């Protein structure tokens, strides 16, 4: 069924594409090194890449480094040109104007999440980076996952404390490249112990567990950025299809199905696989008021479960669902099944049978309706 998902872009989409490509050509390239704690080696990796690019003829400058750098980092720094931070305000910040005057091809900026002091043009350092990119200067930068704005409630729950500086997740999604700097937690326990001193639960085992959770968040976030970039790439090629690297569960609800169980199971399945949950209903004519109420409740439950909810239209529900599934790269389809078996079902293929036979590359999980179902 590979052609089902292929769609020609509309004129508006084409225009957007052209504009985006123009911006893309003048803009500097952004590469982000993402880590989950201090000490995994983000700065080192960033500076090492700067050094290699310089060795290959790139015009490279460093506009911000973090203090507490080790010997290895110092050695790398010694080989690179440095544009000093400006110090005329309350705290040091990137000297954006100096970098723009110098206009290197590549600028290295450590510690992306810093907040700029009062009186700066931009409130936050990531906005400085944005300004440099717009000016056509490429940037390598590094950030710790705990500083991603959207992840802060999660990170706070793990670390038991709050960080004030933050960068919006969309900034990462807009990066040309993102690279994860991974290391087992043992590499950063000492530093984490110092950083977290005073917060509850501070023995090595608890710290290791906390670090592991942050590490998992960083891995999944990177996977999501990669997934979205891959999707964009495929879409630019006119292929509305995914590779199934991310598990996506689609739950089909009807007024009769055991929807709340299906949605709960779908949510759990998606969580376990770090995947996404979708819920769809195919509208066919008017529903009795009781059915309508049940359906509304089910869709509310789906929204509460943070599912992508969609109401589909179509003569044929099976085709509508399968088209939706293909377009969204669904890997697991949850459908309900009533145990009724009419004489008609014995002659023509019933919807369930069609789901099983026609779902291409998608697993179909069947939930029985009724009292016994669990």
């Amino acid at each position, binding site marked *: 069924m590979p052609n089902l998902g292929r769609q020609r872009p509309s004129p508006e989409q084409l225009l957007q594409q052209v504009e985006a490509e123009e911006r893309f050509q003048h803009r500097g390239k952004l590469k982000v090194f993402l880590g989950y704690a201090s000490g995994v080696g983000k700065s080192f990796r960033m500076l090492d890449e700067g050094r290699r690019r310089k060795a290959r003829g790139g015009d490279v400058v460093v506009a911000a480094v973090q203090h507490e750098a080790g010997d290895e980092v110092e050695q790398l720094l010694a080989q690179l040109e440095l544009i000093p931070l400006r110090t005329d305000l309350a705290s040091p910040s990137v000297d954006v104007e100096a970098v723009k005057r110098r206009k290197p091809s590549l600028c290295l900026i450590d510690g992306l999440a810093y907040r700029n002091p009062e009186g700066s043009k931009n409130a936050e350092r990531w906005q400085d980076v944005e300004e440099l990119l717009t000016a056509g200067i490429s940037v390598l930068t590094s950030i710790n996952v705990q500083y991603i704005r959207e992840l802060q409630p999660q990170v706070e729950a793990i670390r038991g404390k709050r960080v004030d500086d933050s960068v919006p997740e969309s900034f990462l999604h807009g990066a040309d490249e993102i690279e994860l700097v991974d290391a087992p937690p043992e590499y950063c326990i000492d530093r984490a112990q110092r950083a977290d001193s005073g917060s509850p639960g501070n023995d090595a085992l608890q710290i290791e567990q906390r670090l592991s959770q942050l590490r998992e968040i960083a891995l999944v976030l990177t996977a999501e950025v990669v997934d979205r970039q*891959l999707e964009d790439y495929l879409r630019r090629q006119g292929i509305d299809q995914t590779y199934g690297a991310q598990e996506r569960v689609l739950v089909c609800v009807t007024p009769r199905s055991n929807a709340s169980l299906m949605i709960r199971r779908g949510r759990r399945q998606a969580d376990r696989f770090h995947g996404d949950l979708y819920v769809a209903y195919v509208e066919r004519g008017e529903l009795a008021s009781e059915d309508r109420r049940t359906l509304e409740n089910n869709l509310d439950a789906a929204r509460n479960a943070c599912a992508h909810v969609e109401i589909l239209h179509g003569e044929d529900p099976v085709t509508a669902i399968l088209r939706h599934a293909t377009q969204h790269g669904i890997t697991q389809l949850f459908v309900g099944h009533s145990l009724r078996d009419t004489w008609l079902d014995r002659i023509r293929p019933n919807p369930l049978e069609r789901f099983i036979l026609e779902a291409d590359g998608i697993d179909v999980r069947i939930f029985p309706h009724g009292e016994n179902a669990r």
Partner: protein
Amino acid sequence: MNPAPRGKPGRLKIILGYAAGVGKTYKMLDEGHTLAAQGHDVVVGYFEPHGRKETIALAEGLEFVPRRAIEYRGRRFEEMDTPAILQRHPEICLVDEFPHTNVPGAERSKRWEDVLVLLDAGVDVVTTMNIQHLESLNDQMREITGVQVRETIPDWVMKRAAEMVLVDLTPRALLNRLDRGVVYAPDKAQRAKENFFKEPTLAALREMALRQTAHEVDSRHGGENNREPSVASEPSQGGVMADGARERILIHITEAPATAALIRRGHRVSDYLNADCFAVCVLPGPGMGSVPAKTRGALEQQLDFARKLHIETRILEGEDEARTLVDFARRNGVTQIFLAKPPRPVLRFLSKRQLAMRIVRLARDIQVTVVAERRARK
């Protein structure tokens, strides 16, 4: 020499990548140096230089246990010398290319089996592999790359790793390396670019490696109770559902070729849901003698495959396949039955009622998952 205490198995660390050239071997050697500098007794058990200059330079200064030559069909092959490593008994041994298949004539057919021997002898091992080689991802990998990987690591072997580290590199950086001739010689690099080394393929593989590492970190240190609960998800501990039941997954084994993919998928889902998993086949009469020889061979192969993945298997007998399977499932508290997608019936009227549909009908209180085959993308 300072032999590790008997009985205490060595610690396994896997350095995971998503393609040749991302820097796994480099990372392994780098770790070797760091560990040696910390005063640990480190040897290189096997190192694959791939003709990469930087990597070869990094191997200098580390102690090597020489490889062992094995003759096969008049040609000379070199394999890791496991007996010599055991003799030397270092604290830590570096072993490149974990999924490698040994040449016939070696004691064990797989390098990972050699590594298990080292671990059992109390030697810590640092090894390297690519995500493509994980058994339960085999079908998804074929879907992404169009290639069926033959050298696989069973998931339970990966579970033995105390630690896993991902070597991440963006596909663009990897392609640059390929262009600069760092990864392969020019002719091989060109061929690689035409096949496997395409940006979307690499991106998808990278995503799989990231997700797998997240899962491995989660299953070692995380635990369900730490995850931020989403509003509608029930409080659950591992495979235990709110109603107290643990998910139990039953895989239906038949002689059909699609069964291998079914076993892998069922196994993977069980792993992620932390569920019990077992596999059964149904024979029409007593013993394997009740099926034709050809079918028997295929069935035994599938059962064997499931056992290799450490899935408990059972052979049932019953004339009515669907009923026997469902009765067994109900007796054993199964919550999900995994079936392979049935072939399209040629003539629906004449065909017996589809097995899958019969199982669905009979399993009124059990969920059924029909696993579709994953086909390679064009």
